[in-house]
């Protein structure tokens, strides 16, 4: 139940991709029939992705990852519009990639500030409003948080940015295919899109850029993707991303409903049977696939190792399983103490999950938690 970190490519997506590895191998830039075939396939994918977020195909630019798309949006936007000012503002719960990109700008004279969030992880719009000034070039707030699932008020955040003449970017990696996104209705200027989070292949991403915007490329070369992202197009990857987007659009209404049911069953099942367990993030205003639960007195990595032992793969907000030793910045931003953040589990549900599996988790967890709490040096007497 760790679909957020990696899910299998949908077989229908893979099927669509295969001919572009071996049969239709033309370079989309070539002026011959095989090149045209590849170009046509890429433009079909552009349409499929545009359809998922109500954009125009010409507003979709392919990259090699969602991270690269965010680099293009923030670095490319900052360089292009540097005459306007020198400030970028984000929420305090952005993905580490967005945070590091914004921090990188501060090396060259930019100012970066983060708007705080409430206890559910929702960005405080009045605080965001205070931070956005006439000197702000880009405001970036994620559409939904991948760790705690909280959905952000991006339409309102975009309005705050626009009021001061700033551009609004949103990282939709954790939201795409999970909740409806409409760049026109939400008035979004740039949106980061990820393929492998919607059962498409890894190694491909895209940036939606509103027609009126001009960015500076961050990857310079032969001028592919209207000069915004040079490098030979990853035709099979792009075709797969397109198909995945088409399927996501078709299946979103039914899959979102199904996952919401499973999610709420899981949350209730855990928090009602195990004492001192709490939901992180908002109860209802969260992506259908995300459940983040906190267990007092035990540490997240010990939990995931124990769950793995009974065949369940989940993730943790604990530092101990991460590359750094810091507890989850996102959980800390919601006001949790480090010792509470350490004991959090992240379940990201997906197509392959069903009710039997959720029941299995609910059945397995109490004994695991009890065992770890009985060993723990900080468990209070009454819980032993």
């Amino acid at each position, binding site marked *: 139940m760790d679909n957020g970190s990696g899910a299998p490519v949908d077989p229908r997506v893979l099927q669509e991709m295969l001919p572009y590895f071996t049969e239709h191998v033309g370079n989309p830039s070539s002026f011959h029939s095989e090149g045209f075939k590849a170009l046509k396939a890429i433009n079909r994918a552009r349409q499929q992705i545009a359809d998922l977020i109500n954009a125009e195909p010409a507003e979709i630019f392919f990259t090699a990852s969602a991270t690269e798309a965010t680099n293009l949006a923030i670095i490319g936007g900052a360089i292009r519009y540097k005459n306007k000012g020198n400030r970028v503002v984000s929420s305090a719960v952005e993905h580490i990639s967005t945070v590091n990109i914004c921090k990188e700008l501060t090396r060259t004279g930019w100012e970066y500030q983060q708007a705080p969030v409430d206890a559910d992880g929702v960005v405080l719009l009045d605080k965001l409003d205070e931070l956005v000034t006439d000197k702000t070039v880009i405001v970036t707030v994620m559409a939904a948080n991948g760790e705690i699932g909280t959905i952000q008020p991006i339409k309102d955040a975009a309005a705050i940015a626009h009021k001061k003449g700033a551009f609004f970017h949103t990282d939709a990696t954790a939201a795409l295919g999970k909740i409806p996104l409409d760049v026109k209705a939400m008035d979004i200027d740039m949106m980061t899109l990820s393929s492998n989070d919607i059962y498409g292949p890894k190694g491909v991403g895209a940036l939606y850029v509103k027609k009126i915007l001009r960015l500076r490329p961050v990857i310079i070369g032969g001028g592919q993707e209207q000069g915004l992202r040079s490098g030979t197009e990853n035709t099979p990857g792009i075709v797969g991303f397109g198909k995945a987007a088409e399927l996501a659009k078709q299946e979103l209404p039914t899959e979102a409903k199904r996952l919401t049911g499973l999610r709420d069953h899981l949350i209730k099942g855990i928090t009602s049977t195990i004492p001192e367990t709490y939901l992180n993030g908002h109860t209802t205003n969260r992506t259908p696939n995300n459940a983040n639960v906190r267990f007092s007195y035990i*540490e997240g990595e*010990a939990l995931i190792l124990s769950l793995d032992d009974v065949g369940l793969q989940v993730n943790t907000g604990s530092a*101990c399983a991460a590359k750094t030793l810091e507890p989850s910045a996102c959980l800390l931003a919601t006001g949790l103490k480090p*010792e509470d953040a350490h004991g959090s589990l992240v379940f990201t549900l997906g197509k392959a999950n069903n009710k039997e599996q959720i029941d299995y988790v609910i059945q397995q967890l109490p004994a695991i938690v009890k065992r770890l709490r009985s060993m723990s*040096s900080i468990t209070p007497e009454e819980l032993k």
Partner: protein
Amino acid sequence: MYSDKVMEHFKNPRNVGEIKDADGVGTVGNPVCGDMMTMYIKVKNGKIADIKFKTYGCGAAIATSSMSTELALGKTVDEAEKITRQNVADALDGLPPVKMHCSNLASDALQEAIKDYRKKKEEKKK
């Protein structure tokens, strides 16, 4: 990322618990960092006759606690005092580098317990 031995000690930790009338107790770590352990020792004829631990922490923290108790049990206090973090890590067929610093605290807890034992012994003499 963990050795089989670490996983084995994590799943079946030795000597978990508390000793109510312990001769020495040592606590190290901090819940803020995600690891905190307490070690209890009982000494008879200069030897570690009983040892128990309680650990809040990751897999490595629990496994190193378990291994430290196993290494110390039956040894003289002087021998047990020489058990280092590296000894514990080696006995577990190694630890991931990042865990060497944050979670390999069990031998420190053992040292603290021994220090506590010596201090109490001194106090009794007075």
